[in-house]
């Protein structure tokens, strides 16, 4: 029961929580071997979109297609091809680094769990601390371990929610190198981030979200930071325009 895909299509996806619209008609396409950046201010809906892409959340309308299938038709074989590195790192502090990875390896039914875990620990640079409890790790160490956990099953689609937070310069660069490696292997990487400097030069595609809406980003030669600022300011201007006209008739 294996399943694979090389294209991710977000088709007119909206999501609301009661009265609050978190995402409004977002459409996006990503291909294998691409790193897509999800940028936007806090509360723009980046985490919500990532949750929907990881199948943890269902869209209120619209559909997400993985290749030709969607979450329901693909069943749980789909989750074997997805990896999520969330804001909460999903590590058990009472277990050692090795135990954490072995648990997830066994949970995912991976062959040869012990060897895989040893390799992953080496890649994370945690080989000497393998048998220490995660509760004693620094943020950067936990991040590296969590990344290895998300990659243990070699997912086709890797989703990262603010992965650069709390990383020092060296770790940040190491993560960038890792993501480039994954792109080379044909994975689809979607990264939600605030760190525009690190993302510069890394992203193949840029998606900017504001208030749940996807904005058009210019393809100019300007730096990522400039392009992002420009996009956000343009959106704020159109929003003010609309608000000025409609405020007369809006109930208070």
């Amino acid at each position, binding site marked *: 029961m294996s399943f694979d895909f090389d294209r991710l299509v977000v088709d007119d996806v909206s999501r609301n929580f009661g009265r609050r619209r978190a995402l409004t008609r977002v459409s996006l396409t990503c291909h294998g071997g691409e790193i897509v950046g999800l940028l936007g201010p806090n509360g723009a809906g980046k985490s919500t979109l990532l949750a929907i892409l990881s199948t*943890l959340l269902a869209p209120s309308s619209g559909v997400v297609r993985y290749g030709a299938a969607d979450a329901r038709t693909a069943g749980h074989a*789909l*989750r074997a091809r997805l990896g999520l590195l969330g804001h909460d790192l*999903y590590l058990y*502090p009472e277990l050692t680094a090795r135990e954490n990875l072995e648990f997830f390896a*066994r*949970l995912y*039914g991976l062959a040869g769990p012990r060897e895989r875990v040893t390799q992953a620990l080496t890649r994370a640079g945690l080989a000497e601390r393998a048998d220490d409890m995660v509760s004693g790790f620094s943020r950067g160490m936990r991040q590296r371990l969590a990344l290895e956990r998300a990659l243990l099953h070699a997912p086709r689609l890797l989703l990262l929610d603010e992965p650069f937070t709390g990383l020092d310069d060296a770790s940040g660069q190491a993560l960038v190198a890792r993501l480039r490696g994954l792109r080379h292997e044909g994975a689809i990487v979607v990264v939600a981030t605030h760190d525009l400097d690190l993302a510069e030069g890394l992203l193949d595609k840029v998606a900017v979200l504001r208030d749940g809406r996807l904005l058009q980003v210019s393809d100019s030669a300007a730096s990522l930071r400039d392009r992002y600022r420009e996009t956000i300011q343009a959106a704020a201007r159109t929003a003010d325009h609309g608000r000025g006209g409609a405020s007369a008739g809006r109930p208070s």
Partner: protein
Amino acid sequence: MRQFLRVAWVVMRKDLTVEMRSREIVYTTVFFAASCVLVFAFALVREGRPLEDAAAGILWISIAFAGTLGLGRTFERERHTETLRALMLAPSDRPAIYVGKLLGILALLAVVEAVLIPMIGVLFHAPFMGSPFWLFALLFTGTVGFASVGTLFAAMLVRARSRDVLLPVLLYPITIPVIIAGVRGTAAILQATPDEPMARFWVALLLFFDVVFVTLSLWTFEPLMTE
């Protein structure tokens, strides 16, 4: 099927390993259960001595209270690290995760009961060892009934507000038949001549309850846990 059992086993082993590191939940829950017994012993008195007939009732009340506490604490741990989401991301039948969690809770309650039985037996002069088979049958079927509903409710409350008070609010009314069956069955076997047909009736009822509610829990786990 083999994948289902493997996932359940892996989840249970992880829970037990985590618990064994600190043993926090085991120690505090057992102690809490023991305190319950004492509180009831002092509260239910006749002529200055604890009510001996109350042994069956006190046993099951303490199991229910300790079980609720243990369930709350176990899932609070998962909530704290958001690891329940990581479990939901695994490529397996989601009900397997429910079963793994349920087995962990059963292990916890088994330890609690292993402490409560001798304690109540001694304090209330209750002849539990008169019919060990029926006692075991009652405890097993009753605990499974209570824990099956409890694990489901505790899991679904992880993302809810007021979760500490809502767990008992939801759990106790649904598990009243379990309590009734457990208490009456235990009282039946604690009599001078154990009433085995009565015990058998209550065990049968509990078995039926277990089948129905474990099945319902397995069916509803996935729709409840996905948003």
